[in-house]
């Protein structure tokens, strides 16, 4: 738990569920109660959470597409500039601008930039790397969240109905309920 020397600003109410139905009904109930900062935690991706919490589709495809366009055009311009403009190399009198022979490198650069943008875009959107997070303060959470159980977190300004939310989550069938506070 947080060693509060200063006033905590936000609270995370965490609840553990053993099956998906319980988690999804908790998600719907908390959303209906007007909480906006809700997240779930599971050892593997779950179906139905996105809909229950009304998340918008991921922005990853746009980031990946940007990478693809940059990679392909970047490779084309690079080869054009280096081999045809800056230092023209005559290879067996072939055309200086010989696009068919540039296709393999254009393709590889498209893939490379798409992959790099996807990977770094993923971490940027997820806010990772982030070694520490308030939810890790809960021992019960750390014990099962990444290996065998489903968790929900509701984030509220500290002191605003923490206990009531905990009771509500217990009522939906949570196995464990825990509270952690963010220390500024």
């Amino acid at each position, binding site marked *: 738990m947080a060693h509060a020397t200063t006033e905590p600003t936000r609270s995370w109410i965490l609840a553990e569920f*053993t*099956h*998906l*139905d319980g988690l999804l009904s908790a998600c719907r109930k908390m959303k209906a109660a007007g909480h906006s900062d809700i*997240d*779930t*935690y*599971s*050892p*593997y*991706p*779950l179906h139905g*959470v*996105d809909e229950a*919490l009304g*998340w918008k589709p*991921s922005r*990853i*495809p746009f980031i*990946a597409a940007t990478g693809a366009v940059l990679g392909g055009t970047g490779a084309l311009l*690079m*080869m054009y500039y*280096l*081999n045809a403009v*800056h*230092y023209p190399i005559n*290879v067996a009198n*072939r055309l200086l601008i*010989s696009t068919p*022979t*540039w296709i*393999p*490198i254009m*393709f*590889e*650069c498209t*893939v*490379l930039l*798409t*992959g*790099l943008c*996807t*990977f770094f*875009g*993923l*971490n940027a959107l*997820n806010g*990772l*790397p982030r*070694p*520490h*997070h308030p*939810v*890790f303060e809960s021992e019960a959470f*750390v014990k099962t*969240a*990444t*290996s*065998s*159980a489903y968790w929900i977190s509701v984030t509220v300004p500290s002191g605003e109905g923490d206990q009531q939310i905990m009771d509500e989550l217990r009522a939906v069938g949570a196995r464990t309920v825990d509270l952690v506070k963010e220390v500024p």
Partner: protein
Amino acid sequence: MATEHAHAAAADPLAGVPVLLGNHTDETLTDTLFGHVWRKPGFGWYALFGLALAGFGLFVLAIAVTLYKGIGAWGNNIPVGWAFGIINFVWWIGIGHAGTLISAILLLFQQKWRTSINRFAEAMTIFAVIQALVFPVIHTGRPWYAAYFLFPYPSTNSIWPQFKSPLMWDVFAVSTYFTISLLFWFMGLIPDLASLRDRSKGKLQKIVYGILSLGWRGSGKHWHNWKVAYLIMAGISTPLVLSVHSVVSFDFAVALLPGWHATIFPPYFVAGAVFSGFAMVVTWIVPARRFLGLKDVITMRHLENMNKIILVTGLIVSYGYLMEHFIAWYSGNEYEWSVFVNRATGPYAGVYWLMITCNVVTPNLFWFKKIRTSIPAMWILSILVNIGMWCERFIIIVTSLHRGFVPSTWEMYYPTWVDFTLFAGTIGFFSTLFLLFMRFLPAVATAEVKEARHEMEIGHVHHHPGLMKAGLPEGHAAH
């Protein structure tokens, strides 16, 4: 639980043995699949690791000799200017291809059985590509100068790489392949690393796994992005893996040399790569599933499926040989035809017939279910396939080069002890990396196996509520 397995098998008409054995929950799967990371390795691991390190020693020795004496320490000559270096390069790159095929193509085809073996095969890809990259770097003789002509780097010479050359395509293809494979593998590892972090007992373990997992906490918002990103990585890896060995084959096919200048090369190289790659997966996974206690997750079904892929790709490779020989004869070009006659009857005929035996004859034994499902038989056959595929690259490269258009350019090629040592050294280096991987990282993609189990479970209940209720552990019936 027996009824559940019977049902799992019945649901898929092609399935004999289920992809997941035993009465597993997320909890027990975590224990089973992480077990080998927490256990202190036994004598066997240390013995193998010692052997692998000795092999790595050979690697260091061979590189030291090569850099000290120069490329003259190798058996290369004129006309055989390309020999062991590129043979081993192509062989290792090819081995890597199975990993990408399993992780990307089978993911897109929604082949659930891939989840048990993809981590393992992807690790193999990365380690194999590292070995492959050693050869083009070392063969420059002075690798510290290599960056100047391999990468578009503004050197003081002010001369840029020549992008019309297949060798430049190769540089881009292989470096992209390595980068993307590594990112894809790592992306899949992050959730498992987080799980390892949360179950670590020691402080050092917790810190190391904590750093590697980037602070992953299994958040739904993260999974939401991760699912899409993982699919995109699979989507781009699929054409990438096909392009890599096609580009490798262009190194040969674009040259106007009898025996190399063939349009069949790209598909035939890709099939050969998958063929040898799957063989290498079988060679490693057979002992690994036993010693790491993974028999519930890597079942006979996985092994049999892999053997079927070896059979299919083996037949494609055989067809490639057939067409290559047919076209050489049908072209009416006597230089082309003499290369093929020389391969079968010339000074390297022994290697040629070993290639035919290992690549054309042995995979056909996998037509028999008994052999396909026999552990010792598949292990031996998988090694024969890799010997055969190495011989194939030797035949393509050395026999095409050693007899030029005029007899005055004819010269035999003999590898030196440095060539053999470097090749053995890369096998040692590869084994070292693999054994370290099996010691410190989960050999099976745990999060993905759990997801597959979860989906199977939901699927069952959905279709057969009565049947499943009895079979499932308490607390799961309500799904």
